[in-house]
């Protein structure tokens, strides 16, 4: 279980000094591992709680991005479903989950996060969004549907620290 991982936590030793991807703790210590039953679920809670997002959650854990997703935010997460990951060429996900590809994985995941919190209707006001990857993604409106970076929003769940938009495709960065 995610919240039980801090058994091995160390605080002042074992720095993740050279890790080039940002995160607030490869040591499973921090807000992500603080659980309560009173607060509104945050974007990480929502992803963890969804049986349709086990691939995404595995990726977040592999990239040690949990603490970034529970911060005060606001954060808007475009959460590809397991089916969306399945549409990628065979072996892509397995490859990204390898420890040596952690940076690349983190970059792709950050490409699915926007600092901000906008519902689907409100997103129609935007032409582009600036992602945590430092790249922009286009926003397109087709009828009632909103596409972000080519991925269609198929459900939206407000979170305590932002909003999760479930999307039907993985949004790949240009580089």
């Amino acid at each position, binding site marked *: 279980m995610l919240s039980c991982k801090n058994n091995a*936590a160390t605080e*002042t030793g074992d720095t993740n000094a050279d890790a080039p991807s*940002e995160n607030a703790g490869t040591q499973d210590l921090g807000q992500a591992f603080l659980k309560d039953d009173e607060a509104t679920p945050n974007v990480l809670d929502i992803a963890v*709680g969804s049986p349709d997002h086990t691939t995404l959650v595995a990726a977040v854990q592999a990239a040690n991005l949990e603490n970034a997703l529970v911060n005060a935010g606001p954060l808007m997460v475009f959460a590809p479903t397991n089916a969306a990951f399945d549409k990628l060429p065979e072996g892509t996900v397995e490859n990204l989950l390898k420890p040596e590809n952690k940076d690349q994985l983190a970059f792709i995941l950050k490409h699915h996060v926007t600092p901000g919190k906008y519902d689907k209707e409100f997103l129609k006001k935007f032409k582009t969004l600036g992602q945590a990857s430092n790249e922009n993604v286009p926003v397109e409106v087709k009828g009632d549907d909103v596409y972000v970076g080519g991925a269609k929003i198929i459900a939206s769940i407000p979170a305590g620290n932002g909003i999760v938009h479930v999307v039907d495709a993985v949004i790949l960065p240009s580089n």
Partner: protein
Amino acid sequence: MKKIIHFITAFAFFAMLLSCGKNSQNGTKKQGALSSNAAEKVYVAPGEYDEFYAFISGGFSGQLAVYGLPSGRLFKVIPVFSQDAEKAWGYNEETKPMLNTSHGFVPWDDLHHPDISQTNGLLDGRWVFVNGNNTPRIAKIDLTTFETTEIIELPNSAGNHSSSFVTENTEYVVAGTRFSVPIPQKDIPIKDYKGNFKGALSFIAIDPEDGGMDLKFQIMMPGFDYDLAHPGRGASHGWFFFSTYNTEEASTLMEVNASQNDKDFIAAVNWKKAEEYISAGKGKKMPAQYAHNVYNDQTHMATSTIKDEVLMLDASELPGLVYLLPTPKSPHGCDVDPSGQYIVGSGKLSANLTVHSFQKMLAAIEAKNFDGEAYGIPILKFDDVLAGVVDQAGLGPLHTEFDGKGNAYTSFFISSEVVKWKLGTWEVLDRQPCYYSVGHLMIPGGNSREPFGQYVVAMNKITKDRYLPTGPEVTQSAQLYDISGDKMELLLDFPTVGEPHYAAGIRADIVMKNSRKIFKLEENDHPFAIKSESETKVVRDGNVVHVYMSTIRSHFSPDNIEGIKVGDKVYFHVTNLEQDYDVPHGISMIGANTSELLIMPGQTETFLWEPKEVGVWPFYCTDFCSALHQEMQGYVRVSPAGSALPLSWSLGED
């Protein structure tokens, strides 16, 4: 919808499973501290002194707190912008004028950025300057008394955020407005913002002898939001740099509308050029209302003066005064390295840091290589002024400090960490988590030419599980990291007063030798002061009564007063006759609609009591002054309004 319900149900299921505690963490924390000697590094033995003072702002508390580093021990909370019943700040008659403004008495503000005075680019430890955001003000704290001795209001400003930073000889304390507003204020539609609202940058000249503040001039700028600022130093002395956002000039739904432009600006202001323009008579005097409040250590009283004019320079009309450096993604922090060569812009929605080169900026200006203009102010080309980019350093960069060894330390709010990187190569060298949501960082001396690069303090907005819980509101905190080695090491968490927004630190020996111990009684020029018990008296003027009272261990003089009547306004002017270090006395009167007084040796303070009921009412000393503190008390007899009982006062007469 069905899908959403499915998610929520799934979440509830998981929430039940996610109940295991973090008990094991305590054990590992202790092991970590022991194995790394963190405890030893922050331990200051009883009776020994800390190596540094840290002046940590209280944010929304409106006050400035004084801590020791590395221990994190709290020494004093200096009242600045908020009334403080503990010290009678803003309650006693002497300090009420300090909180006067053009809007009247304003008993609170939001104190953000302390900065320590400098001489030749080095901290001289004479004064700390701080800004009040809400009703724009700058305050000066005198580091001989650790008291606020001056507050100046800033006209044409609103949300005084990019303040209060000092130039390297404390020529100026500089303040920029966060909100642009109509200048002068007028009744116009909010939607007419664009082009009609302006931002004012204020340059407050500092008297080199006594630190006196004088609003020398303001620079009228386009209607952007001015976020943070830092002075040039060394080669760039004479310039001041301000980060801007909302160059879109939006006035509503800022979280969307102020993030439309891919780049905003860092405004580079040539203040030496401003002085030339003023000498050439190019400044325009315009009407303005602002308060200037000064506390005098001889009279122990403050005065408030409303000023009515300010000298304005219009950046749109005066060439060479301001240039705009494009900077990505709504830059927040705007920090200048100790050499003055690099200006670091932190786009708060960015994963990168942008570093501008002062030399390249000068070359681009020389070559007149501009990329258009904004309201007549030249915009330089991004690539022409860029020194480098710290790529993918973290998420949500805010503020950068420097260790004087060629390294920079940047806080990242969203990824909640401090990242060490190298100036010149722009490579990330180290990163450490912050618990949680770090705002500013502070390295003692970090805003000077020679930082004391031993510690960095991270100031966090959120602590959640870091301390014993205290209901919904839990403390904010500071975290101390040792930065003397290649890798940072977290040494200590300590709770703070209010929001630890920003801080300034200085080596203790520079300051402590100047700290005053007492106020000399013979120098007390308070109009109601008395120099000995023989001068105590009670004087009636209509229904106003002045009590000239003294304190000395362990009695008040007088301690029996008769002849006071219902409806009187009784002013107790209390002089502490003690001339010993650390022997304050206090006083409080039953039913007085104000705070206690806390009076330092040699000082006079005044509170007002308006008795409403007939009777005999006691007062007592509120500071535990001596073994007979509990005997330090007295009575006031209150007679009916029409009573003919004459005034009398005494001590020790039956």
